[in-house]
């Protein structure tokens, strides 16, 4: 018996990815978590254990901001789950309809906003919704609904929902594309077999296609979750780091940015900022775990 040869090609081929990923992802992640355990007192960095987290969760000033940001973030996520993903699925179902004309055109048009920069989207929508120069008030005026117009981005009660819908507009193309791909991979024979049994039209969608694309919907949900809890850019680009009005659009990302880098006269506090980043990491990790172990393992898969 030969002793097993060391298969050198495996570590060699893995090395570049492992090294780069470690240097730019794993190391910074753990270093940030480590940073959260320190505090700066009189120009000295002092190890303070979990004191930063204690401040974040139990100090009334910090915890109020934290829970406000978390609550806003949940709402932001909920709007995406309830609006973006159903619309994405519906669009994909329409696009995959064999008799639809210009499908490629619609597909590109809906997908294009996804590749735009947040800054462009934030700025464009701010202009569209501007009470002074925007086309939204005049368009509403043209159909006699001017009274429905409000300076949405400036009102505490509407600003966050407005921004969430802007984000939905921008990203609806992603669930659409993923579901579209999943729908295309469903073999004709299955649908034809269904037709023979009298399942056509909408019934075919609900009874045959939807169960087959459920795993894709699961993936989309988790991508939405991770994306939303890491969101920052759109809010920062349109409302600034103070996430106005009166912190009504403050989400974890903007809260972390403001704390970490400072803002205006507020000096940056990398240690508290890291604590918030740590909390964000834990929330996302928890969400992903719930999905992976609670949902994905129980999902029924069909061999096509």
């Amino acid at each position, binding site marked *: 018996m030969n002793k097993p040869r060391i298969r050198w090609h495996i570590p060699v081929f893995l090395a570049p990815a492992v090294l780069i990923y470690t240097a730019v992802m794993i190391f910074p992640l753990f270093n940030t978590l480590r940073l959260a355990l320190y505090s700066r007192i009189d120009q000295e960095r002092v190890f303070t254990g979990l004191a930063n987290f204690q401040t974040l969760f139990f100090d009334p000033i910090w915890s109020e901001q934290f829970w406000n940001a978390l609550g806003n973030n949940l709402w932001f996520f909920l709007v995406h789950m309830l609006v973006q993903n159903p619309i994405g699925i519906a669009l994909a179902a329409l696009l995959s309809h064999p008799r639809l004309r210009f499908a490629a055109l619609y597909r590109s048009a809906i997908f294009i906003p996804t590749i735009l920069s947040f800054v462009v989207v934030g700025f464009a929508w701010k202009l569209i919704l501007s009470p002074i120069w925007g086309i939204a008030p005049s368009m509403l005026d043209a159909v006699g609904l001017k009274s429905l117009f409000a300076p949405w981005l400036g009102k505490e009660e509407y600003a966050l929902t407005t921004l969430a819908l802007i984000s939905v507009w921008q990203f609806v193309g992603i669930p659409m594309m993923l579901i579209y791909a999943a729908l295309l991979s469903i073999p004709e024979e299955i649908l034809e077999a269904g037709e023979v049994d009298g399942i056509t039209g909408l019934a075919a969608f609900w009874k045959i296609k939807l169960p087959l694309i459920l795993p894709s919907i699961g993936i989309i949900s988790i991508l939405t979750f991770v994306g939303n809890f890491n969101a920052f850019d759109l809010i920062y680009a349109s409302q600034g780091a103070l996430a106005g009005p009166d912190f009504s659009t403050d989400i974890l990302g903007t809260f972390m940015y403001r704390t970490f*880098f400072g803002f205006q006269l507020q000096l940056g506090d990398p240690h508290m900022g890291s604590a918030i980043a740590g909390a964000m990491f834990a929330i996302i990790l928890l969400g992903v775990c719930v999905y992976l172990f609670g949902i994905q393992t129980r999902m029924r898969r069909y061999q096509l």
Partner: protein
Amino acid sequence: MIRKSLAIALTTTALTATAAWAEDVTLTIESWRNDDLSLWQEKIIPAFEAKHPGIRVKFTPSAPAEYNAVLNSKLDAGSAGDLITCRPFDASLALFEAGHLTDLDDMEAMGNFSDVAKSAWQTDDGSASFCVPMASVIHGFIYNADAFAELGIEVPETEADFFAALEKIRADGSYIPMAMGTNDQWEAATMGYNNIGPNYWKGEEGRRALIAGEQKLTDEAWTAPYATLAKWGNYLGDGYEAQTYPDSQNLFTLGRAAIYPAGSWEISGFNALADFKMGAFKPPVQNAGDTCYISDHTDIGIGMNAATANPDAARTFLAWVGSPEFATIFGNALPGFFPLSKEPVALEDPLAKEFVSWRGECESTIRSTYQILSRGTPNLENETWGASVAAIKGTAAPEELGSKLQDGLASWYAPQQ
């Protein structure tokens, strides 16, 4: 004494000059004023280099929002320029305490500035000054003089006049009475609260009493400006809640609004854009004849990187920045940024002249939240933004706002506990 230091100065210049035959010394300036790049390259630097052969100066600004972060990382890495443009108060104080800025108290040029001017770049006890004051900005109101003439409105002196004028403009309907929005929040605090406020808390007197813990933000003097701001909401035009800072600037320069709560930094931009006659008036006082107070806010200074390789050349440059020659070039090239030197500077721009003339009539102060009081969490300046917006929108009563700010300040600031 003077003779001696002059001699030293001459020797130093002579020395650097001799060295210069071999190789020019190049000084690099870090700054956030990228708007002023051409001014530095075309006017300020040539004027300096003409007088000081052998020293070359490079102005290398970065974007305002990134400046603090960029500068900090450059200083930590040892790659920052020789001269550092200083933000007022804590941002620069932190640099000094970390050993990045040099103490400049021994420089003769520092004698050209008043204590208020230097206060933005001193340690709390005033024992060390680490930046040469360059410029301040003054708050007030800019108005559309053509619109005022058309509607027959006099420039308001008192608060009653001010609101009567606003009411008249609104009744007429051809202009938005006042161009300001609350979307970006800072205007409400900077051009609202800290613009009209000094008349209520009596400028430096109230500001220092607040720092000393003798007055509280719940006092009448500190909540009354919120009550006045609450009346502004009626005159700000439709949808002001979502109106941004550039929106307000455009509304005013397009001639659609009559009054613009301003900082003097707007002057050069407005001069370029507005095709109507503009004037300025200072924050109205309660009763005719009251002492007026203006916010004459120290905004830009310049200091020396402690790690510079050319300390002598850097000091030569700083001494020149402290001289009347620099003040004249700077003040006229950037109307609205007023030199802080004791010696008055002759300005040419009429609007800038109007602003700077208030220094003679009124007591100067700086923004109430900038010195010491915004060091902790919650940050008083940021909280004031929110409070001023809430006051204008009418979502909270002035007393409520005062007690919220006071609670926040008292939570970390010992003299207020």
